[in-house]
């Protein structure tokens, strides 16, 4: 789905936010991007739907160079993005109007818009709230609305730029549940996160530091390399740390740790 080839991005001459990043995220994959603040995670994500253009190198989406897309809307339609602060990305004055914002921009006919609103609100569990004022929704609901807004454009991939960072644990869990369902339906997901528990959900973990790609491998494999991660200011989830101490390296969940302990006994 996404292929980055030696992508470098300088936000001013000589200052590299991304340096020579090469990465492949296959279609249908759930990738988690981790790294300390300023490591280049968000910058990389914004290259994936053309919000930022690489200073050098190539970004391929669905096999095509992002510069080859006839218009930027085609690319935006293919790759949806959800940002950190739900309040700053909701445009509509009601839930349905906000979901419609993307399709409105694409000039989708009204009947189709209505159909999509019903469909995506079902996907994120907000059916019945069509007329609600977004200001009266909880954090988790707002972020699910933002996801619905992206889904209404019928994207093939969804990027989440720290989309759970401002949510309480309940809200974050709601969002994750939606992502699991979307992933099961074949959606490519790129999730930028600080939460190691969320990384454990992914199939591919991408570690960024100082604008460079440091590692890209399944989370279990990455979680074995505790020392290196520490060097990049990344803390493992407690259960993985405990497992590593006990010699059960790269455990992703409590269940996994317990099973492996049982087997080890």
């Amino acid at each position, binding site marked *: 789905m996404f292929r980055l080839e030696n992508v470098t991005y300088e936000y001013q001459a000589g200052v590299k936010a991304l340096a020579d990043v090469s990465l492949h995220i296959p279609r249908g994959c759930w990738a988690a991007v981790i790294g300390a603040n300023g490591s280049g995670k968000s910058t990389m994500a914004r290259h994936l*739907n053309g*919000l930022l253009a690489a200073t050098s190198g190539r970004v391929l989406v669905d096999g095509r160079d992002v510069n080859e897309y006839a218009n*930027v*809307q085609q690319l*935006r*339609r293919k790759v*949806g*993005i959800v*940002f950190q*602060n739900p*309040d*700053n*990305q*909701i*445009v*509509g*004055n009601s839930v*349905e*109007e906000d979901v*419609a*914002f*993307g*399709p*409105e*921009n*694409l*000039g*989708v*006919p*009204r009947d189709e*818009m*209505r159909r999509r609103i019903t469909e995506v609100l079902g996907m994120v569990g907000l059916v019945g709230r069509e007329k609600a004022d*977004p*200001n*009266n929704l909880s954090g988790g609901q707002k972020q699910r609305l933002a996801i619905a*807004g*992206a889904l209404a*454009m019928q994207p093939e991939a969804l990027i989440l730029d720290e989309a759970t960072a401002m949510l309480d644990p309940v809200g974050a869990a709601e969002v994750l549940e939606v992502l699991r369902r979307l992933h099961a339906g074949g959606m490519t997901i790129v999730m930028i996160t600080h939460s190691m528990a969320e990384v454990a959900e992914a199939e591919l973990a991408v570690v960024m530091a100082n604008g460079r790609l440091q590692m890209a491998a399944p989370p279990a494999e990455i979680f074995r390399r505790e020392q290196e991660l520490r060097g990049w200011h990344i803390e493992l989830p407690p259960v993985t740390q405990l497992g590593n101490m006990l010699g059960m390296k790269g455990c992703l969940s409590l269940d996994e740790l317990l099973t492996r302990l049982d087997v080890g006994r």
Partner: protein
Amino acid sequence: MLMAAKKRQIRFGAYYPAESPVHSLDPRAKIIAMLLFLTGILFVESYAWFAAVYAFGLLALRLARIPAGKAFGAVRGLVVLLIFTALINAFFTRGEMVLWQYGALTLTLEGLHRSALMLLRLVAMVAFSGLLTFTTTPIALSDALESLGRPLARFGFPAHEFAMMMTIALRFIPVLLEEADKIMKAQRSRGGDWREGSLTRRMKGIIAVVVPLLFNALKRADDLAIAMEARGYIGGKGRISLRELRWRPVDTAVLLVVLVFVALLVASRWLPPLW
């Protein structure tokens, strides 16, 4: 939580929710009708015709299921202006019939007459403009203005941009109010309170609230712009709005009725005075 309770009470614009034939009219018809009606009122110069204006307006209010008290309540905010205007008209109109004189102040019958007409005119304009603002949501108003302004887009009039700005402003007013509340609480918890102390102290307190509020608003604007771009926003071109304005025969009918009435009001200037 106090803020959450307060937030629900805040209503933007003057929209008065009700099910009525006036509420369901096309907002464009209402805007045009209101402009015509207000123009008509400017032409009225006699008490009899003002009686007609008030009868027409009150009938429309009844149809719109808006309590007359609510419509005329809007006049309260203008009481000072009204009294001032009335006094000026009463005392500075020259005339034959001097009722009372004190130095340079002269109260004439003509002055009283003019002052009364002026009051009737202003009160009618303020009260009956509620027929538009009470029955139309701010969003519908902005849609209508966009639609009416579209022919002007050719000459560079940013009709769509204005409507989008209005939509976003409506969406963010509660967000910013909540934020202002949060900042004020934060300042107060550190001993800053703009409601107490000398004028300079209060000014400083207000600055301490306004600056972070403005700063955050700019950050939000930046975020929102990126989010809108990410959702394919490229301006009004090729855009289809989910909300659809529908012009029905009843809209044409209403407009015709208003047009006839306004024509009468305009003509009344040249008709022999009834009273």
